C-alpha cells in the first residue's frame, strides 16, 4: 500500500473537519478522492502531505509515518491554492524545487517536465507573467521533478481550459502506465471517472463510499430495450423481476429494466427471443459517477 490510513481525524477548535477516515491506495492506482465543498478533502490531503497534523488516527505514506520528510522525497504534490514566487522565471522555480527535493540542477530534467506539461519554451519568462492555467501546469511540473512514486493532485484542473484539462488527463494516464500512483482530488466527476480506478467519497468529513471504480459503477445496471410485439405475459415477468418501465407501444418503443448485474442480460435476451419479441436494440447502461456521487451525498445530507 502506498497510502494506508486508519481512523484519520481532524478537529479544529471543537469542529470536526474529518472523522475516522480509512484509506487504502495501492501502488499504480489512480485514486479519486471526492466530496462536496467543505467535506474535508483538502484537510485529508494536507494530513497526508504533512501540512496538517491529525487529531487522531494513524497513516503511512510510501511506507513511512505521516510527516516523515524521507517519504516526501518521492512524493509530488500540487496544492489546491497554488501560489509561486512570481519574481522567479520558470527555470528558477524548477531549480528551486529541485533543491528542495535535494536534487542537483539538471536542465535535461527541467526540459522533460516542461515538455510533459506543455510549457517548453516558456521557462525563461517570469512566473508572474504566466496565466493561472500556466502556473497550475508549472506546479504540476514541479511536482513531477523527483519522478514521484506518489503524486497528490488537489484540484489540478481548477484553472485550466478544456485543452489544459485534456493535457492533465493525458499526463495522469501516462503516469499510470509508468507505474506512478496518483491521488486525485477533483470536483470534475467526468474527469475522475475517465482516469481513476479507485475512489473514496467523503461527505461532512466521513467516508460515505469507497471501492474500485468498476465495482461502484456496476453496482446498478439498467437495460434499455428497443422492441415491439411484446406480450402482456412477458411484460409482466419483466415488470415483476426487473421493475420494467411502461410497456412500449409500436416498433420504436423503449423499455427500461433495472438489473442486479450485467450477467442477467443474456437471460433476458433469450426470454425475449423465445417469446417472439422483435428486438431492435439492447443496451446495458451503467450508472455514472455523477449519479452515484449525488445519490450518496444527498443521502448523507438527508441523514
Amino acid at each position, binding site marked *: 500500500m502506498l497510502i494506508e490510513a486508519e481512523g484519520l481525524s481532524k478537529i479544529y477548535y471543537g469542529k470536526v473537519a474529518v472523522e475516522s477516515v480509512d484509506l487504502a491506495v495501492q501502488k499504480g492506482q489512480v485514486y479519486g478522492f471526492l466530496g462536496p465543498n467543505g467535506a474535508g478533502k483538502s484537510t485529508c490531503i494536507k494530513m497526508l502531505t504533512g*501540512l*496538517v497534523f491529525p487529531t487522531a488516527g494513524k497513516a503511512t505514506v510510501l511506507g513511512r509515518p505521516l510527516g516523515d*520528510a*524521507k517519504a516526501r522525497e518521492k512524493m509530488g504534490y500540487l496544492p489546491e*491554492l*497554488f501560489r509561486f514566487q512570481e519574481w522567479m522565471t520558470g527555470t528558477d522555480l524548477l531549480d528551486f524545487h529541485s533543491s528542495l527535493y535535494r536534487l542537483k540542477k539538471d536542465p535535461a530534467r527541467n526540459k522533460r517536465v516542461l515538455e510533459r506539461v506543455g510549457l517548453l519554451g516558456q521557462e525563461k519568462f517570469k512566473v508572474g507573467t504566466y496565466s493561472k492555467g500556466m502556473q497550475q501546469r508549472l*506546479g504540476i511540473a514541479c511536482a513531477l521533478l523527483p519522478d514521484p512514486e506518489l503524486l497528490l493532485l488537489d484540484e489540478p484542473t481548477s484553472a485550466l481550459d478544456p485543452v489544459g484539462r485534456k493535457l492533465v488527463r493525458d499526463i495522469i494516464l501516462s503516469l499510470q502506465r509508468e507505474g506512478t500512483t496518483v491521488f486525485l482530488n477533483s470536483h470534475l466527476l467526468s474527469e475522475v471517472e475517465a482516469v481513476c480506478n479507485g475512489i473514496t467519497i467523503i461527505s461532512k468529513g466521513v467516508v460515505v463510499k469507497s471501492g474500485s471504480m468498476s465495482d461502484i459503477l456496476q453496482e446498478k445496471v439498467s437495460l434499455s430495450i428497443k422492441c415491439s410485439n411484446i406480450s402482456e405475459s412477458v411484460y409482466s415477468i419483466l415488470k415483476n423481476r426487473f421493475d420494467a418501465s411502461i410497456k412500449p407501444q409500436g416498433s420504436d418503443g423503449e423499455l427500461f429494466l433495472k438489473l442486479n448485474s450485467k450477467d442477467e442480460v443474456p437471460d433476458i435476451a433469450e426470454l425475449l427471443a423465445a417469446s417472439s419479441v422483435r428486438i431492435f436494440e439492447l443496451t446495458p447502461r451503467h450508472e455514472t459517477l455523477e449519479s452515484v456521487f449525488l445519490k450518496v451525498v444527498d443521502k448523507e445530507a438527508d441523514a
Partner: protein
Amino acid sequence: MKAIALATLKEAVRKKTFAVMTLVSALYLALWALLLNFFKGSIPADDMSMGFASVILAQMGLQFSSMILCLLTIMLSSGSIASELETGMVHSIISRPLRRFEYVLGKFLGLLSLTLAYAAAVYAILMLIGSLFFLNSITSISATQFFKGLALYVLVPAVILCPTIYGSVSLRAVPNGLLMIFLYILGNIGGMVEMIGRLIGSDPVESSGIFLSLVSPFHTIFSSAERTLLPSSGIVGEMMSGANGLSGSGKPASAWMFLYIAVYAVGFLTLAIRKFSRKDIN
C-alpha cells in the same frame, strides 16, 4: 535550508521596501555628509566645544542610521513567513522533503545575511564620510574600536530579527511589523527611563528602565556600540539629557547583559521553530 536562505535573500533584495529604504539610507548619509561639511568650518576652535560637537555629530550619524537599519529589518522580515502562510505559497514548499526547522532557519539566515551585509556597508560608509570630513571623533578611532564597534552595530538589527521571525510565525505581517516597531521604540524609552532614574537618584525609575531594556535590549546593544566608538558619548549624553531625549544611554552593558541578549535572540528563534513545527498549515 540553503535553497530557502538564497530564495529569501533574493526576494528581499527585489522588494520595493528594500529599494525605498536604500534610498532613505543614501539620502540620510548624504544629508549627514552635508552637515559635516557645514560644521567643518563653523565649529569653535576651543577643544571642549570641538570635542562636544564632534561627538554629537558622530552620535547623530550612528543613531539615525541604526534606526533606519532596524526599520528595514522589521519591514523585510515581519511578513517573511506570515505572507507565505497567508498566500498559501508555503504549501508547495513544506510538502517537499524539507524539515520545518530548515524552513524557519533558512528564512532567518537569508534575512540575517542581508541585514549584516547592509549594516556593515552603512557602517563603513559612515566611517568613510566621518574620515573624509575630518570628524575627529571618527578619525581618532583605533582599529580595535572600529571592529568592535562594527560587531555591535550590526548586532542590533541581527537581534531584532529574532523576535520578528517569531512574530512572523505567529501573526500576520502588518500587526507583527507594528508590534516590532513598538518593541524597538520601547528599548529606546527604556534607555531614557534608566538614565532619568539615575539622574534623579530614583531606584524604582531606574529599575523600570532596566526592565524595559530587558524586554527590548536593542538600544542597550546600540549604546554599547556608541560607547565603544565614542567613549565620551556617555558624558555628553548626560550633559544633553535635560534637552535631548534621543541619546538616553544607560550604563555600558555588562558581559551578563550580552549573555542575556544571546539567550534572548536564540530563545526567540527556538520559539519560532517550535511554533512553526507544530503549526497546522491550512
